[in-house]
């Protein structure tokens, strides 16, 4: 991988340069939350943030979008406009989440709606420091080696810029005067010091590699009922989770009866009716079954299939579930149900 150095005071210039290459998005502070919003320049953004409400999936599988338009004569596919979108300030966990979505929507049968959005997206990563809700170290997604176009690690006086794709390399080559390739021994030492101190900041650690077995053996545990009883079936956990991608499809008639659209909208397996089929048979009528599906899929089945959880440790479910159901509380409860001594704290 090619690596460059970008002096901190040149970062705004690079952003100016990028704003000519496509629509620019970055982390913007709104009240006490951050979200990826369209921006024009450096000053609008705040790179010192922990997590946005929604991850990059809002660019790839928007909460609601039209896939087809039709009238009595014909059906037309609707693809997004082929404008380049450049997203700045993406943390490693969110890049890992895109890699998981890519696998799902592109590896096997290609989803044309996802593919057209993905092809037009340029991902510029940014280093971060964890808060108490971050568990990406446990999920192995605290560091990212690919899946981005550029990745910036913020050090004292400059950024180390990692190039992850030919698109990224092209951007650097076109703004050559801002970057240098002169990475010194001190720069490397500073980077290693920074990585080390960052990795010591994580407060929570969960041994996810045991989760498939633990969930399998605990399948009928009362722990699930305790969470099921609490769950409000609000779907917020799926909405904010950067790897949750389930969608529903609905047709809508607009104006006259022979004109309409087909829409896709985010769905959640925690909502009632998720597994309902015609005739009224519901395969998962209660909340316990649906919570179990959510976490079994993320922490057991996905690990079994791909060797890693479908959780990237971003901490969004930890921050947003109104009744404290999240990967941390679920894992801890399942462990401690059978193994008192298992403390899911750091530094053991």
């Amino acid at each position, binding site marked *: 991988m090619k690596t460059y150095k970008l002096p901190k005071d040149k970062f705004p210039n690079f952003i100016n340069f990028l704003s000519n290459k496509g629509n620019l998005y970055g982390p913007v502070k709104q009240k006490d939350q951050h979200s990826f919003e369209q921006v024009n320049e450096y000053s609008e953004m705040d790179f010192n943030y922990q997590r946005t409400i929604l991850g990059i999936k809002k660019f790839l599988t928007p909460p609601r979008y039209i*896939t*087809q338009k*039709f009238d009595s004569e014909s*059906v037309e*596919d609707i*693809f997004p406009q082929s404008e380049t979108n450049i997203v700045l300030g993406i943390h490693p966990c969110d890049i890992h989440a895109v890699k998981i979505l890519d696998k*799902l*929507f592109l590896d*096997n*049968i*290609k*989803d*044309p*709606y*996802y*593919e*057209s959005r993905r*092809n037009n997206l340029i991902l510029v990563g940014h280093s971060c420091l964890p808060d108490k809700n971050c568990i990406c170290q446990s999920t192995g997604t605290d560091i990212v080696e690919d899946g981005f176009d550029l990745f910036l690690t913020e050090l004292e006086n400059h950024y180390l810029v990692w190039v992850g794709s030919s698109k990224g390399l092209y951007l650097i080559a076109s703004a050559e005067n801002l970057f240098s390739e002169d990475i010194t021994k001190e720069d490397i030492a500073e980077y290693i010091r920074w990585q080390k101190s960052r990795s010591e900041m994580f407060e929570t650690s969960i041994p996810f590699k045991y989760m498939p077995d633990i969930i399998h053996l605990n*399948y009928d545990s009362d722990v699930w009922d305790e969470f099921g009883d609490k769950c409000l079936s609000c779907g917020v956990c799926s909405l904010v989770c950067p790897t949750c*991608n*389930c*969608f*529903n*499809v*609905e*047709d*809508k*008639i607009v104006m006259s*009866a*022979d004109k*309409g659209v*087909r829409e896709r909208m985010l*769905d959640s*397996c925690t909502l009632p009716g*998720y*597994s*309902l*089929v*015609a*005739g009224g*048979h519901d*395969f*998962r009528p209660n909340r316990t*079954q649906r919570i179990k*599906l959510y976490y*079994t*899929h993320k922490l*057991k*089945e*996905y690990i*079994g*299939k791909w060797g890693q959880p479908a959780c990237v440790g971003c901490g969004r479910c930890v921050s947003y579930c109104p009744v404290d159901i999240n990967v941390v509380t679920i894992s801890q409860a399942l462990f401690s149900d059978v193994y008192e001594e298992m403390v899911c704290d750091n530094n053991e």
Partner: protein
Amino acid sequence: MNNKERKNHQYKAHSAEILDLKDLSYDTRYFKVKFVDPNIQEKLGEYKPGQFAIFSIPGVGEAPFSISSTPTRQSFLEFGIRKVGSITEALYKLKIGDKFDIRGPYGNGFEMDKMKDHDLIIVSGGLGAVPLRSLLLYACDKREDFKNVYFLNGARTPEDMLFREDFMAMHQREMLETHLTVDEDPKGDWPYHIGVVTKLFEKIADRVNNKNTYAIMCGPPIMYKFVIKELLKLKIPKEKIFMTLERRMKCGQGHCGHCAIGGVYTCLDGPVFTYWDIERLKELI
């Protein structure tokens, strides 16, 4: 993605014309269709028994339906559709000669090659006869590939029994050994068996060769447990017991998540599963 790929992407449905319609029961209708484009008909005619297609009615929605015809007869597709809601009601309004869009085929289907030179026990309940008819017709068209074919078919009442004439005709031509049963016979004119479908096992049990038999079933979720019990009693190996399952489906190709059971997608890895899978995946039945 170039323009050509955009035109032929995986969600593209193709126009099909209705060649024939027939009521199979008071709430289930037979559809015989053919793709308007002969190239599509040729390509999509290469499906496997057990696969399904997705129908699209713009303004109403999309829904999956099992293919009921056999790939050994390639010039058309057949379906059996039960009227239960908005899409199926819209399909009921269509007439012979009308066109609508279909995409597919989807799903794994049955591995017919594996079943070669075996006896087949095919057990169906209610609407399950629709997908299993594909396999039955296939076995009849390639009769020399299979040994004994037993077909046990149950329905709630004689009025609910689908394809009764078809199945009895195959029976009369000694293509298969068919046993029909109904739970209730309100009119009292049913000439065959009365009772649940599992009772029909009595009629074949002493002839089943469990070393050389595949069992296949499809029906309402409640039926599986009882049929499996009978098959295990006959010592049919778990990996030779097949069943096709229904789940809510919104895409048919592993994207929407709705049909997930543990780590598998019913639309991609199913809808045909073995009893071995069922034991491994806790939520399957």
